[in-house]
């Protein structure tokens, strides 16, 4: 710009730039140490016409947050604006249909905003496992059961074959991505129903490339309760200190006392 407008006085240039910025025909950016001006398209300048500089500050902060959205408290910190100014800006921007309020599953009371045209990210909505604000236990359980049945049936299964099965079975109206099904399989692993194994490429794993992670039904389940855990000694925290005539002994054991009152 320096070159093209060499003969125009600096002050005049500055005034012209400000006027164009006010009319929203120009947008100002910072590229490293340089200030850069970009011409706005006609539609864009109409969208932002009449909005104050505070409105635009808030708009920028919201835009920068992308599909994660930004909390009003963070907006205040970033823009250094006061509560009433922020309220006013949000009201104006919402009235123009430029921004929308969204609810996070992590904290339903936080006031979070994002650009109206964006889809909220998985972190905010909870993804496929949430319906509205609530965790959809029923849906998750159904998918979980189906996956378990499939793995047990197959003997050994890879995550892709599970994904394929779920897609074909049509139990979910929403498309479930591989990472979401991985969450389900991780659940099954932690529940002890399924175990992760690395394919050896031979035997049961013949159909699966070597060293690939796959799943099969749990071979050795730890029973939930056994004779050993049923009696107080099995789960006693001071077992090692217990002697016939010591301070801690079977005769004076408080756990047995409690256990024997039935």
């Amino acid at each position, binding site marked *: 710009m320096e070159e093209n407008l060499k003969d125009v006085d600096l002050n005049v240039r500055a005034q012209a730039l400000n006027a164009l910025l006010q009319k929203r025909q120009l947008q100002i950016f910072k590229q490293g140490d340089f200030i850069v001006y970009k011409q706005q398209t006609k539609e864009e300048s109409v969208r932002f016409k009449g909005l104050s500089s505070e409105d635009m500050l808030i708009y920028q902060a919201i835009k920068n947050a992308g599909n994660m959205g930004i909390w009003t408290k963070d907006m205040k910190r970033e823009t250094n604006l006061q509560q009433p100014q922020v309220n006013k800006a949000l009201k104006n921007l919402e009235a123009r249909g430029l921004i929308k309020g969204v609810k996070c599953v992590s904290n339903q009371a936080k006031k979070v905003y994002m650009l109206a045209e964006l889809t909220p990210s998985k972190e905010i909505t909870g993804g496929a496992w949430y319906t509205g604000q609530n965790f959809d236990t029923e849906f998750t359980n159904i998918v979980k059961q189906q996956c378990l049945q499939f793995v047990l049936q197959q003997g050994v299964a890879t995550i892709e074959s599970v994904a394929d099965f779920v897609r074909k079975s049509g139990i979910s109206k929403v498309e479930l991505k591989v990472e979401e099904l991985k969450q389900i399989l991780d659940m099954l692993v932690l529940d002890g129903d399924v175990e992760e194994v690395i394919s050896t490429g031979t035997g049961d794993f013949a159909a699966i490339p070597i060293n690939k992670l796959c799943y099969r039904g749990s071979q050795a389940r730890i029973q939930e309760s056994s004779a050993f855990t049923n009696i107080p000694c099995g789960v006693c925290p001071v077992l*090692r200190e217990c002697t016939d005539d010591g301070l801690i002994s079977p005769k004076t054991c408080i756990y047995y006392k409690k256990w024997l009152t039935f």
Partner: protein
Amino acid sequence: MKFLEYTPLSRLNGFLNNVNLGECVLKGALEAYSCKLAGIDRKLSRSLEHQVLEYLAQSPDDHSSSPMGPLCSTASRRTLIHLILTMNHIYPDYDFSMVQAHNFSKECGLNNVKQIIENYLLEAAKMWSAENGGDNLLDSIWKAVDEVIDLADCDAYSYMPEFEGDPFIERGAIWSFNFFFYNKKLKRILSFSCHCLSKLAVDDSPTEEILSDEDTIFEGMDME
């Protein structure tokens, strides 16, 4: 809801906002609001009313009872809505629309409430007295509160925070209380909330250092 400026309350807040009690810091606030609904508040009160009515329509009859009275009565609903709107104003970064009637409890008898508060503020009262020539903190508080909201005609409610990240729950607080005094005739609400923060909880970094020290202490020790 309009915030009511009142000098005696501001003066008390100046003290209560930060009381150094040695190992802990007390932070309290007295905020009075008039229940005049304008703009966003009016819109929100309509949607809240709608929300409650919808909930009532879906649930069996005996779910209508609440600490504010039966929710099928307009007055009870209005109390609930005013409480929620007040909370929105106290914490403007939050929207308490999903708070329900059962998250509040109605306190029986104002003397009870006064006694509870007096117990919590015992230490703070000593400091106030020292700084203000023997003046009694609680007396000053109740005098100012009475002038704004006419305590005798008030119902007192307490909010029980449930969800994670609720600003009414302060991290590191040893104790906290919150009361809403609602004068239906005057159409005013006064919120009195207070919590006591342990000084150890205020700075995050020192505790992290302590934890990592503990790990190195245990390194090399045989756990039998």
